């Protein structure tokens, strides 16, 4: 009797634990999951909110080991024979002072098939981009980062659903995309952030992005594209707190075939959370224009 009682208690406890774990388990991350997004007052899936990626794709879309710095220089050869220890690559002088704060964390690939299918010449260009990152990455100069890079930079963004258009307001560089949900003409000129045409596919917001200028990158590892880029994004609500984000990259000038990245986006649901300013133009003026007339504070005169 006593044993049966304890068995029952244990069973109830086990069920309770399972139920608790079940409730706390992450929601299905597949579009086939049962989650149905709440609806806006005009009956559309409600994606409103502040979202952010939480991964290392902004460093490198592909799998990468940790490394000491974003910009590296080859270690100088060390004399004394083959039995002496030699260093791995060293942080470049421009970033050395950052120490561990300037390191790059390791990360898995967000590319669905693991690797980006570069054409041979483009792969060489990517490697050059990586080697000359400090000179070439448009992020360093606070240029608009393009799509999809803006999505997984380490800054939040807000989806604001209007009637015939959806705004995506990014914190980085105060950039905003308008997703046109009705017909719209092509851009009169190529742009940094492209032209976004959206539609609903069930609960998924699908955005076709075109009219890029070819000057943006995908990450801090030199992954790049041309002005032939077309991106198809899919934003799928998979829980009240998550969107699954997928972007298919098509650029026949650079890649051998279209390829896809995939990652969850997380709701920033802190009370009163806002998109704040990151007006980085002001932050890079010294870098970009300092040599053209840096003022010496003691004299008020340009230093050169």
């Amino acid at each position, binding site marked *: 009797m006593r044993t049966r009682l304890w068995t029952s208690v244990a069973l109830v406890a086990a069920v309770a634990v399972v139920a608790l774990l079940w409730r706390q388990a992450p929601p299905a991350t597949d579009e086939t999951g049962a989650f149905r997004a709440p609806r*806006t*007052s*005009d009956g559309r899936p409600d994606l*409103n909110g502040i979202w952010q990626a939480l991964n290392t794709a902004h460093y490198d879309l592909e799998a990468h080991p940790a490394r000491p710095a974003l910009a590296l220089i080859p270690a100088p050869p060390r004399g004394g024979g083959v039995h002496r220890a030699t260093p791995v690559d060293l942080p470049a002088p421009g970033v050395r002072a950052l120490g561990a704060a300037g390191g790059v964390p390791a990360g898995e690939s967000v590319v669905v098939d693991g690797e980006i299918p570069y054409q041979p010449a483009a792969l060489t260009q990517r490697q050059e981009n990586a080697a000359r990152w400090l000179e070439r990455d448009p992020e360093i100069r*606070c*240029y*608009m980062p393009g799509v999809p890079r803006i999505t997984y930079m380490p800054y939040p963004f*807000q989806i*604001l*659903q*209007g*009637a015939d*258009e959806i*705004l995506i*307001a990014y914190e980085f560089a*105060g*950039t*905003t995309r*308008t997703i046109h949900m009705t017909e*719209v003409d092509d*851009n*009169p000129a190529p*742009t*940094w*952030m492209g032209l976004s045409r959206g539609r609903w596919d069930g609960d998924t917001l699908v955005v076709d992005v075109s009219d890029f200028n070819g*000057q943006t990158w995908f990450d801090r590892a030199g992954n790049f594209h041309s002005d032939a880029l077309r991106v198809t994004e899919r934003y799928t609500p998979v829980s009240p707190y998550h969107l699954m984000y997928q972007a298919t990259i098509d650029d026949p000038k650079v890649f051998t075939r279209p390829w896809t990245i995939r990652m969850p986006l997380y709701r920033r649901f802190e009370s*009163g959370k*806002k*998109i*704040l*300013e990151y*007006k980085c*133009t*002001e932050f890079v*003026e*010294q870098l*970009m*224009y*300092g040599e*053209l*007339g*840096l*003022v010496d504070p003691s004299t*008020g*005169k*340009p230093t*050169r």
Partner: protein
Amino acid sequence: MNHHRLTAGRVLTLALAAALAAGCTFASNPRAEGAAGESAWTAPRTAWGDPDLQGVWRYEGAVPLERPKQFAGRESLTDEELAERDRLEKEMAANRLAGLEGTAVGRRSIAESPIRGNEYNSFWQDHGRPRRVFRQTSLVVDPRDGLLPYTPEARAAETRAQARYGVGPYESYLDPDTGERCLTDGVTALMWQGPNGGHNKIVQSPGYVTVLHEEYRDRRIIPTDGRPHGTVRQWFGDAVGRWEGDTLVVETTNFQDRTNYEWANIWTRASETLTLVERFTRVSDDTIDYRITVDDPATFAQPWTAQIPITRLPDGTRIYEYACHEGNYALPNLLSGARAQARTSSN
């Protein structure tokens, strides 16, 4: 995109000068102040019941910010002045479309400009459709004299800013004004400034009104969900909105002090003591009565209020990407030119 440009204040000043030169008086449109009498019209609502301000809007009025001397003591124009002003605006717009130089609103003639080659600044400016005329003689309605109540220090700074525009010195990137540095021309002027990018797209979603200003891609995401002010100081401060009947009231505080920078117009600069209160009331399908009250002891001896009629542009009007910093060739060219001049003069 290049960045030397005439600012709104200058354009208005020049428009006034053009009008005076033509021997004309300013007039205004009965539509703006008569809006209250248009009883048949009811303000549209969003699907969730807020007043609907959505669309692309732009100030297309012909009213100067400050009251011209000739209208001292008068807050509004006569019917005759109004009609004459309307005729003049239409004539100027027609001349502009016909490509007649020297008559275009907001354009300085080459001789008039302190900047050699300033015609470059004109070709890419969008002066829009014929400007609407209104009865008010100045956008500033308080103080009653229609003039900005600068402190003596700020007035001196404004005079200095006007004198150095296009002239320099340009010793560093800090010497051009905030607009030339592709930062902003200031939140105070955002809703109605700009011959080159004065369009404002308003998009509403539950609990938010978002304003996208084309120039500098200035953006304001205004919560209307009753939250208190935040604590982070920003260029555009911390905006909190609420609905009072059909009117959106936006109070903005927590500005960063950028009075140490050069501003094209001192009255648009922000300091930590700035409080802005804006009121957006849609008074007809195509007009928002926009009022802004600026209270900043760092620049003004007393608060001032401007009443600005803003026009809705046709459906389908888009605002475009404003990649100012990305294409700011003007700034390094200006500085390298100044360095070259310095080398030449020291030889």
